């Protein structure tokens, strides 16, 4: 997470069209060719991470109709093209400083493996303090070196001769441009500044190109150019060191032209080198870099000066927020990139009737309409107006921008709009995610908290229970998954290249995984998928690649597109936490146990559905494997997975079971009326699930279930850091043989759960925030004694009278049921009926009477029935048993 405030920058957008594949063209694999716009969309993403004081930041890219792409980038209204004749550059030292700044920008690009390739005065913006910032530097890279677009890249008069010389070739056949091409462009730009003229401006394109290419014959190109423009005498005023720099830049043979990094060492920059301020790289989470590097206080004098100013000048708080944040809010405030372009007439819409072709061949190829692609490249930059956004935020109190984190009881900041915010927190998630003020508040708060991670871990957890703003989701998820340390170094150390036996499987799965998504369907993303999956397989020798891992990986790749290492780390921790042992070569036992517990939970929470599904033989094996193996990532589209996992990550490894129960509950009416075929059809093509309801219901189920009921032998053993069983082995359900829980309808619970309240104290859920956030509306019973548990002792009444669980009632198994399956009435039975819907624990001896009894209860529709694990024998030595009070 890096933080680059908007400052006095604007957000500018520019647009271009990618080339279109011929109709119906397929690759060798039979799949349609990836549209170029998708390709560019994927390649663009890396640019968002490029930050340097002399480079404009890329903020976003969007795909429009007809293979249109719209790029959002930091922008300034003044550029070298507008300022060149303003007279500032008549001063030699200003030119030198400019050259140095440009070179630093280019050098930084080179270090990231990029070449600008369209450097021109228009591509050099000048910010408010006169600092040069290169823009549009990603065009060459994102268009796959020009191969994805029909237009040539670069301004002809600034292009190096070797680029122009290969100009007639299609982009796919051209050699990749080296960083040295930018050096030539810089040379031309500097020469223009020093000569005060625009070179070759009076020539037409053909003669201009000819002139430049003819320079290949020249021994003194600088002099020759000046001579041909009749301004040779102006060169005499140029200091020799600068002239030397120019000569080096304008070396015609690319082989002997220096690299930008070489030029930075040129003696002409001696002064600049001394004055160079090391750039701040922003805040990086999850790396080995020191964060305190940024913690440098400005000198006191500056602070005082600012303080005086602030009194009479209202501060623009929004300008102090990150560019990505401002853009995010701008979009929420109704911003639409395509719309902005249409307003400027940059997208001309024709009524569809005029777009009809005259002739269409049988293969679908249209004729008779010129392609509507007049403007494949438009160099205009449109600035996004932030007025609407500022207007929407003008009521926001400054304290929202500076949340205090150390208050004991965090409350929403008081402000004129305060009442809105606390009301918003109770609205449905979909609305909260669209509310500008609310999102601003949440994003600011989360960014502050993330900066304090891991120190602020518990507070992040608390806030995440309310909701997670989409903008910060990648980092919040990483913190919820306890990512720490230098993830990049770990990831880089893994061999992701050596071919392995699973490569084929991974390769056939990736192009089918969430491909409706434009980011995940790009070739760039396929490469990431492959590397992350291979890295995981190779660093987990105890596990193997199962189909489904790809789906699991998808949301992490999507969220951390520019940080494979973090995506990998998140996936690894996620699997460790929720899918322990699921990906073993032989995972039959693990999955069987999981599904058995799932069956218990269905019976526990919805006996009717459980009875019906049992009757028609519709077992979880037939439908629930993809649910649990991928934690629903194979079943739902990405946007739903995000909301589901936002909650999933807050729970322990049993929460997914309850999500499954919640899904069944939502489909309940249908399921109860359906037979086997209809049921399985429902699950083969899952109908729309209301995710928020599903999440709420699963939390409710989670909280109303005794912890030990979801005990799994194959679950991940608790690590030292987590709350352990406090050494009371007697009470825990250790080593529950699998055969026991399988085949029984009801979940076994431990004695500990019987005597202690299970709710509220389940790690890793921190105590609810105060005031309770939207999700913690379910209150837990305050005292253990108040728990509404009914214990039924099914032993013979003699045994019962000798000692039982305090408060237990006796319904001896042998005489409990009438031949028709109903309960024989007695006072204990009426107590049981009165207790219906609340927790019932059936206890007995070691035999399976208790389990049978519990099963019968489920069969006649009792919910929340479980059985005491190991029976009363487990309690005999504890002194917890007592003699029941005689019946009155």
């Amino acid at each position, binding site marked *: 997470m890096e933080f680059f405030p908007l400052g006095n920058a604007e957000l500018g957008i520019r647009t271009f069209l990618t080339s279109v594949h011929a109709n119906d063209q397929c690759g060798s694999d*039979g799949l349609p060719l990836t549209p170029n716009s998708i390709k560019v969309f994927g390649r663009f993403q890396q640019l968002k991470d490029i930050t340097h004081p002399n480079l404009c930041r890329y903020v976003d890219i969007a795909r429009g109709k007809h293979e249109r792409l719209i790029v959002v980038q930091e922008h300034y209204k003044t550029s070298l093209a507008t300022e060149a004749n303003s007279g500032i550059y008549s001063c030699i030292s200003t030119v030198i400083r400019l050259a140095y700044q440009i070179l630093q920008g280019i050098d930084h690009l080179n270090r990231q493996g990029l070449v600008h390739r369209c450097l021109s005065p228009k591509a050099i913006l000048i910010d408010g303090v006169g600092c040069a910032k290169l823009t549009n530097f990603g065009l060459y890279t994102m268009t796959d070196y020009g191969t994805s677009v029909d237009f040539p890249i670069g301004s002809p008069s600034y292009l190096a001769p070797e680029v122009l010389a290969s100009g007639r070739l299609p982009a796919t056949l051209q050699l990749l441009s080296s960083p040295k091409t930018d050096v030539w462009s810089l040379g031309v730009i500097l020469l223009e500044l020093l000569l005060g003229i625009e070179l070759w401006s009076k020539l037409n394109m053909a003669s201009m190109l000819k002139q430049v290419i003819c320079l290949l014959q020249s021994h003194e190109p600088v002099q020759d150019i000046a001579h041909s423009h009749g301004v040779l005498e102006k060169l005499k005023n140029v200091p020799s060191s600068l002239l030397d720099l120019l000569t080096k830049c304008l070396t015609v043979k690319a082989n002997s032209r220096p690299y930008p990094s070489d030029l930075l060492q040129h003696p002409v920059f001696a002064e600049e080198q001394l004055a160079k301020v090391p750039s701040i790289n922003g805040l990086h989470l999850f790396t080995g870099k020191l964060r305190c590097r940024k913690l440098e206080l400005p000198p006191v004098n500056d602070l005082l000066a600012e303080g005086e100013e602030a009194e009479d000048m209202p501060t623009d708080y929004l300008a102090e927020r990150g560019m990505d944040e401002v853009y995010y809010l701008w979009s929420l405030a109704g911003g639409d990139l395509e719309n902005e372009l249409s307003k400027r007439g940059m997208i001309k819409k024709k009524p569809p009737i005029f777009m009809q072709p005259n002739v269409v061949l049988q293969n679908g190829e249209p004729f008779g309409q010129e392609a509507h692609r007049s403007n494949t490249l438009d160099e205009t930059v449109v600035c996004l107006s932030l007025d609407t956004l500022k207007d929407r935020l003008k009521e926001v109190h400054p304290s929202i921008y500076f949340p205090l984190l150390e208050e004991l009881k965090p409350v929403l900041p008081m402000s004129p709009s305060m009442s809105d915010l606390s009301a918003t927190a109770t609205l449905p998630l979909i609305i909260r995610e669209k509310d500008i003020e609310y999102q601003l508040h949440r994003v600011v708060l989360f960014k502050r908290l993330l900066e304090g991670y891991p120190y602020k871990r518990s507070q992040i957890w608390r806030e995440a229970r309310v909701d997670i703003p989409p903008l910060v989701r990648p980092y919040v998820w990483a913190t919820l998954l306890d990512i720490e340390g230098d993830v990049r170094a770990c990831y880089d150390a893994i061999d992701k290249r050596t071919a392995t036996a699973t490569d084929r499987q991974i390769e*056939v799965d990736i*192009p089918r995984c969430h491909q409706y998504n434009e980011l995940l369907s790009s070739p760039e993303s396929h490469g990431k998928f492959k590397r992350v999956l291979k890295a995981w397989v190779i660093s987990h020798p105890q596990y193997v690649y199962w*189909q489904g891992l790809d789906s699991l990986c998808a949301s992490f790749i999507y969220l951390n597109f520019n940080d494979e290492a973090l995506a990998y780390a998140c996936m690894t921790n996620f699997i460790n936490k929720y899918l322990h042992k699921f990906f073993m070569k032989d995972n039959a036992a693990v999955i069987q146990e999981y599904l058995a517990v799932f069956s218990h939970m269905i019976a526990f929470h919805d006996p009717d559905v459980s009875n019906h599904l049992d009757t028609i033989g519709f077992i979880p094996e037939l439908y629930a*494997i993809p649910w649990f193996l991928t934690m629903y990532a194979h079943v739902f589209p990405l946007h739903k997975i995000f909301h589901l996992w936002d909650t999933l990550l807050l729970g322990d490894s049993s929460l997914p079971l309850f999500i499954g129960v919640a899904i069944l509950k939502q489909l309940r009416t249908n399921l109860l009326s359906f037979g086997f075929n209809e049921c399985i059809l429902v699950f083969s093509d899952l109908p729309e699930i209301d995710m928020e309801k599903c999440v709420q219901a699963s939390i409710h189920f989670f909280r109303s279930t005794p912890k030990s009921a979801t005990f799994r032998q194959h679950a991940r053993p608790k690590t030292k850091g987590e709350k352990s069983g406090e050494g009371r082995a007697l009470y825990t359900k250790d080593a529950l043989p699998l055969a026991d829980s399988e085949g029984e309808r009801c979940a076994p619970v431990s004695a500990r759960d019987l005597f202690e309240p299970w709710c509220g104290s389940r790690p890793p859920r921190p105590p609810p925030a105060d005031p309770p956030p939207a999700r913690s509306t379910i209150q837990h019973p305050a005292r253990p004694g108040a728990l509404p548990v009914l214990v039924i002792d099914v032993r013979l009444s003699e045994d019962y009278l000798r000692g039982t669980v305090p408060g237990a009632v006796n319904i001896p198994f042998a005489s409990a049921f009438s031949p028709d399956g109903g309960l024989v009435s007695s006072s204990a039975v009426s107590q049981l009926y009165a207790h219906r819907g609340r927790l019932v624990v059936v206890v007995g001896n070691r035999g399976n009477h208790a389990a049978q009894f519990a099963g019968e209860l489920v069969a006649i529709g009792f919910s929340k029935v479980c059985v005491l694990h190991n029976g009363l024998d487990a309690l005999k030595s504890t002194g917890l048993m007592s003699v029941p009070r005689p019946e009155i």
Partner: protein
Amino acid sequence: MAGRGTAQRPNGAGAAGKICQFKLVLLGESAVGKSSLVLRFVKGQFHEYQESTIGAAFLTQTVCLDDLTVKFEIWDTAGQERYHSLAPMYYRGAQAAIVVYDITTQDTFSRAKTWVKELQRQASPNIVIALAGNKADLANGRMVEFDEAQAYSEENGLLFMETSAKTAMNVNDIFLAIAKKLPKNDQAGGGAVGQGGSGSRRLDEGGAGSQGSTGKCCK
């Protein structure tokens, strides 16, 4: 994986007369186009980026054969070798199977042969097996010769067609050919109709004769 149970539909009493139900299973290496074949057959659709199948998917389709209505209950299985242990749950009690390979990959053909062997050994003795060489639209990348596959099919008594889920070539035909080949003599008895194709015999094999216990009693 979870190897218990049989994915056999325990039917109630079926409709009268001329409806036959058959359980059909699709097997084959992953990404050969099993799900695509079913999707084309059942919904007439084709998705270029058909998602991978985990576990299995289930669909039904009815075809008319002269005066007979044949209802296929299709189990579309996961292709990855690791999911192999689940397969018996699906092919047990199936009256028909389509083993699919991709004509552009030799390995998928070898895998198909392995499936055929396994079916011959472990599935119902009367199972009708069809071999489908899918992705016939990619014939210029062909790695498995038509004649080779046909000869193999004749040796093993399999139905054989090259299909293309993308162009719909031979998709309906292969299902129809299976429907024709399936024994329907048992169907005359009304009660057997609902019990799926050739009646209770198969259910006994699956061990799932009675309702309610289907999922648990067979190994």
